[in-house]
């Protein structure tokens, strides 16, 4: 199988500009890369290097000004609002720096939440329930399933976020600084959890991070500086 065949994310000569007052900022400069299905990928670099912008483009939250972005064999440039929402729902999972759990829902409901945006048959509902229970067990929050997010620690909340990101069985999970708001112990636990999920489910995890632990265990590390790729290294499996 060639590299192209297993590629799940492709950036080809992508440029992105932002307006900052009267100044035009060239946030991503002619970036090209390809990520393999099932990889544990880290985008690292200092603040303002363009890693969050790239992650936003992968998540179809932003679009490139020039060049093409291909996600799961679909060119995202020029997709309609509804198609983007569908792609996000079916192909992508998100883990946010501030966890972003819905405060009025309990842990089970928070994890279940993305499933409510799609149609489910009775059979699928039953399967999904089992899947949610499996995820809750895997992230170690069985005793907390009826609790609200504000009753949980930061590490526990991020574990809920991981489970929520995986509930729709997406091909790609995007995590924007997932350990930035956690202590080192919780960070370690979360990274291990994500690595486990990556191995068990074959889901591609893409991070933007400063965390050296993530960079260390990543299969593929892309380092950015001033919107350009300065290194693109794949570790040998």
């Amino acid at each position: 199988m060639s590299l192209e065949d297993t590629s799940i994310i492709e950036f080809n000569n992508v440029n992105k500009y932002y307006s900052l007052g009267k100044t035009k900022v060239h946030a991503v400069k002619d970036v090209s890369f390809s990520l393999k299905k099932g990889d544990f990928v880290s985008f690292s670099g200092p603040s303002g290097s363009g890693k969050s912008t790239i992650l936003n483009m992968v998540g179809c939250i932003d679009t490139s000004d020039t060049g093409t972005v291909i996600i799961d064999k679909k060119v995202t440039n020029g997709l309609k609002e509804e198609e983007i929402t569908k792609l996000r729902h079916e192909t992508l999972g998100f883990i946010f720096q501030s966890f972003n759990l819905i405060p009025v829902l309990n842990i089970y409901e928070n994890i279940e939440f993305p499933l409510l945006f799609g149609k489910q048959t009775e059979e699928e509902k039953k399967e999904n329930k089992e899947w949610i229970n499996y995820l809750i067990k895997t992230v170690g929050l069985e005793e907390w399933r009826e609790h609200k997010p504000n009753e949980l620690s930061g590490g526990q909340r991020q574990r809920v976020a991981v489970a929520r990101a995986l509930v729709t069985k997406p091909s790609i999970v995007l995590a924007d600084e997932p350990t930035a708001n956690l202590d080192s112990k919780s960070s370690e636990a979360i990274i291990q959890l994500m690595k486990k999920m990556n191995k068990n489910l074959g889901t591609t995890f893409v991070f933007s991070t400063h965390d050296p632990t993530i960079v260390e265990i990543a299969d593929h590390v892309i380092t950015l500086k001033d919107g350009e790729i300065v290194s693109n290294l794949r570790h040998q499996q």
Partner: protein
Amino acid sequence: MNFSTAKLAYRNLKLHKSKTLIIGVLITLNVAILVIGSSILNTLNTGIEENYVNKYTGSIFISPTDNAEPSLIMPSFDSDGANAVIDNYSQVEEAVIKINGVSDTTGQINAAGLMTIGENGTGFGIFRGIDPSDYQQIFPEGLNITDGSFLKSGEEGIVLSQYVYDMLNSTTTEEIKVGDKILLTSINETSGTKVREVTIRGIHQYDDDSIDISLICFIDLENIRALNGILLNTETSLNLDDNEKANLGAFDEEALFSSESDSLFSDDNLFSDSSDSLFTTDTEDTLDISTDDIYNILGDTSQRDVLNTINEDAFSYMLIKTEDSANTKSVINNLNTMFEENGWDLIAYEWTKGAGMSAQLADVISIVFYGILALIAIVVVIVIMNTLVVSISERTNEIGTMRALGAKKNYIKNMISLETIFITIVFGIIGIILGVSILGITGQIGIQATGTFTKILLGGDVFIPRISGSSILLSIISITIVSVVSSLYPVSVALRISPREAMSK
């Protein structure tokens, strides 16, 4: 929209208690004010309607089309200042009574004038010319005779109102008594000044203290027609043929009465010394003119006598009572269609059109009340809108997360709309309960009217507001509109939130 959206909307409202409460209190107060105000207005309007329809106006009245300002209280004139009358009254009445829904009719003639009694007694009043038996049959509740008696059929005379009686009494040294004669003077632009002496037959008093109603005195038809100059002097009465009508136009005033020597009645022609003048000044000649000669000169005066006869088939208005007040509008439509088909220059109106100031005051109050409510509604919309926008901006991260996780814009719209609907339903019901409770308590004790004006408005000394279903329905409809309108902008703000908002925090 599904159960989970509703659950989420409900929990969001619970989480943001203070904002929910601010919006809720506003909705509650708005609905309560609407229920109370609208019920009071309905009670007022129903009271005034019952009062007027049963005592003064009937449900419908018919007026000549050329009546410039139809009023069942004040005198009525056409655009030329002449009395506007229905001059084929019997024929019209016969046709009107056959219309489905009409239960009874009576005629009415209005006038206003001065009154003189004794040496110094003076006053003024509104004269209502009626057929006593017809009138008492259609308005049995309207008459409260305090002295003497009401007019009898065919009897000449006047029944003074207590107010007018007091006015006259205050200006004369001798007390006015039933049976006294009183001089009535009416001044009309076309028929001139008319004076009639009539007998005071009784004194009556209306419950209504309003000035226009309290001036009404009842008078027999012959006298009111004479005072108003309602005579048979119309072209229709004369039945002139085309030739006669053409001759009428052959002479103008200039030709007949100018001072030019060749005018018919010039001094030269009438009094010149020449032997052929009409009245020669030659005293030596004896005028040998008999009464017959004078009549011959004057010609046939029978036509003139006819012209000066009172038109006994003319009324200013026809008042109509309907079998069911709910059918008033359809009866009016049927009447107007019939007038059009018959080529009669008549028009049927609802009672309010001619009911005078008290009845119209209720309309003015309604307009002012609903105007104030509209302003309150605008303020409520702005406050709800503002509170929702603040609430949504606080939830930017949450909404952005939902969008990132795959929520369509429709889902967000439904969630915000459901939140508004929940608040509206819950606090709308509380508002209705509050309004109904206040009305219930007020209904038990009543609102005491303190001044004349309030008494007129409230239709008596104690006002007991009734809870009306239409007020509750109106409140529900208006608060639904308020909630929908106030959620439009916040929903549009929520829909503009991008998933990027979730990523950036």
